[in-house]
């Protein structure tokens, strides 16, 4: 998933991503209980800056942030991530057992109920997954089930599905079911934390479309109302059986067309919790909000990729030119000035916080050095045509930094550089996907799960869906293949670190900076913490006594 901030899609990607990461980089935040102390009103509700869900509220059908975050409060799967330390923790699952990373036995806790009072059973999961994976049901996230045996029966590449159930899923009894995968996936449990793997109640299957307008889940909050284009309201579910019981009575997901408006509402206490500070208020939000301002790391990275398939960049000996261009970018100054400190300069292809993150894998190639940059470009034979363009989408707020990067390259090396704006994300996406870019392009990645494999194999593996550069390195591919076969996550991460070293040699994409969560909250609430994906920990928010 490639992404960038501001545009709703990006944030969308954040929602897709699993909860917290195993990083401990939650530090640096001024949020937390330090500013607490007010009496708490357990019956109080608060509002949160959101956007209109783009799809019916079905757990496997939310990819963008508007629906994604709401789904996360309404549903709870087998596992999730502890927002305080990013560790995987069991929720509905009592235990998930495997010996070969391919066959899993799941045991459920008892006592979990859906918001309509019916119990959560093994069947609730298996039926939900079978339904969501079925190509005919048009769920955006249907390919999340592709590891499971029999997936191609319900989700063939072409034509109608041959079956309605996946052979890899078997209900043993009310509290047990088994999962068989096509092959070992050492980090499958990480994936299970994603909302697509949520259970569904019986009532769902009677009318999925109607259900999508008023969902019944098993999460900490139950659905109350959806006023289209205005707000979605949820209320705390008093029979919630999870470990993270809500400390407040409910949330209003308030729809904002522009982040500027949300920010002004927050400053005047008409909105309680912010998603992101808009660019025009970044320079002053810390002085506006004081200790209610939030600034912490996020699991996403911004980069610019080369169209290695285009005639200009096809020749194999251009790696030095690419490294030179990377060294011509003054990341420190750009993040401090143009981006107002809302990003952290990158020196690797994996954001800190992901398991397997290694500092400075890019080394000197990600350090600003105009002389060395010029020298490398000359040694590499020069930039084709002595001119580059950087493709980006105009609806994502990228113009400022693309201009700054181009300025930096132009002044450091004399290579002409211009931004090439396309009106919107889907237009630029079309060009990138169909490999029609002739030059450089803005790319980014928001992690699906907090593991370096996700940043590397899914972006740089030969033929990977998100391999926009068209990069293909036998050395990289081989290390990735070995890593995937490992039976422990630790070993997988380590082998991927070796694969990452290959990227510094080839420089198919220039890492620019890691994302940060820049947000804040109103005087009405306290104990507002954000996980490393930029999502507030909704259940922990405390509403102050008026």
């Amino acid at each position, binding site marked *: 998933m490639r992404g960038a901030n501001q545009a709703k899609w990006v944030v969308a990607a954040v929602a897709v991503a699993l909860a917290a990461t195993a990083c401990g980089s939650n530090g640096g935040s001024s949020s937390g209980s330090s500013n607490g102390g007010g009496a708490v009103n357990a019956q109080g509700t608060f509002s949160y800056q959101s956007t209109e869900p783009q799809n019916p509220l079905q757990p496997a059908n939310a990819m963008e942030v508007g629906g994604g975050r709401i789904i996360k409060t309404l549903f709870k799967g087998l596992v999730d991530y502890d927002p305080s330390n990013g560790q995987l923790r069991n929720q509905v699952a009592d235990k998930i057992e495997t010996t070969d990373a391919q066959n899993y036995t799941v045991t459920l806790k008892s006592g979990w109920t859906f918001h309509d009072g019916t119990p959560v059973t093994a069947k609730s999961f298996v039926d939900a997954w079978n339904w969501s994976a079925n190509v005919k049901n048009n769920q955006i996230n249907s390919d999340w089930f592709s590891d499971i045996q029999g997936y191609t029966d319900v989700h063939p590449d072409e034509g109608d599905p041959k079956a309605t159930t996946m052979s890899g899923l078997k209900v043993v009894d009310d509290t047990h079911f088994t999962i068989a995968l096509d092959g070992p996936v050492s980090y499958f449990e990480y994936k299970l934390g994603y909302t697509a793997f949520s259970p569904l109640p019986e009532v769902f299957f009677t009318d999925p479309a109607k259900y999508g307008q008023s969902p019944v889940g098993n999460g900490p909050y139950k659905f109350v109302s959806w006023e289209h284009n205005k707000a979605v309201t949820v209320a705390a579910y008093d029979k919630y059986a999870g470990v993270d019981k809500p400390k407040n009575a409910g949330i209003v997901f308030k729809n904002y067309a522009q982040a500027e408006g949300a920010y002004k509402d927050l400053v005047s206490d008409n909105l309680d919790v912010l998603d992101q500070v808009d660019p*025009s208020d970044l*320079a002053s939000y810390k002085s506006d909000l004081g200790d209610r301002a939030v600034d912490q790391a996020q699991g996403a990275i911004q980069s610019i990729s080369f169209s290695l398939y285009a005639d200009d960049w096809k020749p194999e000996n251009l790696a030095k030119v690419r490294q030179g261009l990377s060294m011509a970018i003054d990341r420190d*100054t750009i993040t401090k*000035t143009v981006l107002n400190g809302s990003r952290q300069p990158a020196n690797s292809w994996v954001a800190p916080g992901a398991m397997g993150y290694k500092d400075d894998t890019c080394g000197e190639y990600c350090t600003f050095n105009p002389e060395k940059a010029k020298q490398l470009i000359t040694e590499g034979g020069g930039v084709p045509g002595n001119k580059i363009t950087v493709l980006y989408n*105009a609806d994502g707020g990228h113009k400022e930094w693309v*201009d700054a990067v181009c*300025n930096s390259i132009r002044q450091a090396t004399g290579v002409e550089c211009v931004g090439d704006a396309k009106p919107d994300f889907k237009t630029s996406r079309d060009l990138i996907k169909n490999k029609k870019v002739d030059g450089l392009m803005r790319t980014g990645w928001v992690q699906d799960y907090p593991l370096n494999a996700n940043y590397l194999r899914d972006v740089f593996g030969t033929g990977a869906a998100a391999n926009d550069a068209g990069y293909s390195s036998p050395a990289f591919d081989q290390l990735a293949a070995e890593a995937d076969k490992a039976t422990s996550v630790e070993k997988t991460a380590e082998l991927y670190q070796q694969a990452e070293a290959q990227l510094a040699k080839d420089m198919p994409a220039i890492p620019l900076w890691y994302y940060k969560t820049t947000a804040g909250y109103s005087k009405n609430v306290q104990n507002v913490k954000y996980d490393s994906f930029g999502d507030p920990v909704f259940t922990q928010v405390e509403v102050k006594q008026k």
Partner: protein
Amino acid sequence: MPDMIEKSAPAGEDAIPAQRGGAVAEAKAEKPRSLGLDAWHDLRKRPVFIISAVLIVVLVLFAIAPGLFTSVDPRAGDLSKHYLSKPNYLHLFQADWFGYDGQGRSIYARMIYGARASMVVGICVTAGVTIVGGLLGMAAGYYGGWVDTIISRFTDMAFGIPLLLGALVILNAFQVRTVWSVVFALVVLGWTQMTRVMRGSVITVKQSDYVTAAKALGAGTGRIMFKHILPNAIAPVIVVATIALGGYIAAEATLSFLGIGLQDPTISWGIDINSAQKVIRQAPFVLFFPAGMLSVTVLAFIMLGDAVRDALDPKLR
């Protein structure tokens, strides 16, 4: 209201309708000296005209030869000067006269270099819209009947197209977008309003006694339209056009903002106004100068329009 009767009866057959207030036909157009020459003699004496003409000449000079006014590269950015360098108003004509923008580029240099694209867009779109809309509006208003029906209903149809949709579709059709594709798109999307304004104005003027008189005297259609109706009907068109000129310069910026307008390395006031909005809290002066130039341009044309209209309008003599 009395029952309506056919309005476009041939001149001479129709009784001259009683006019409210008892206005009498003015036959100034029958003077020996031509209206245009007359207007020009009049114009030269008006200070408003002289001031506006000087302003416009300076702006046009900016557009033609920006290098005369500054030697600074308007694209060269130095991030160490990012907003922090406030304008230095004593450094006349130097890079830091008006300070630096968010990319550390000289605002003064960008103000000078931005004139070309902005002036081209502003003037050409206004001219295009006025000519297209003016002619259509005049035809619709003067002839009435089925000509009016076709033009007016077509205008209604074009009016229904959301600007954003139209701009996206038109500008995406261009492989390479230049100033001229932006001009084209804005004219295509902008002529409707001018058509209606002109039509409305012509409908009123057409009923005047002097038009009836001219018809009775056997003046040709072209002569009536351009010598009698146009000078009397042009006032609202000039007002709308001069204000719209500023609107088009700003519209260009909106298109750029949406990624379908002018792009780097082109420089325009509109683009700078747009990016300055984001930093209005930190550095309002970044907005002030390009927006000020826009104001000055509009002011010059409003004054010019006022002067020309006064000179053309016999009633105001």
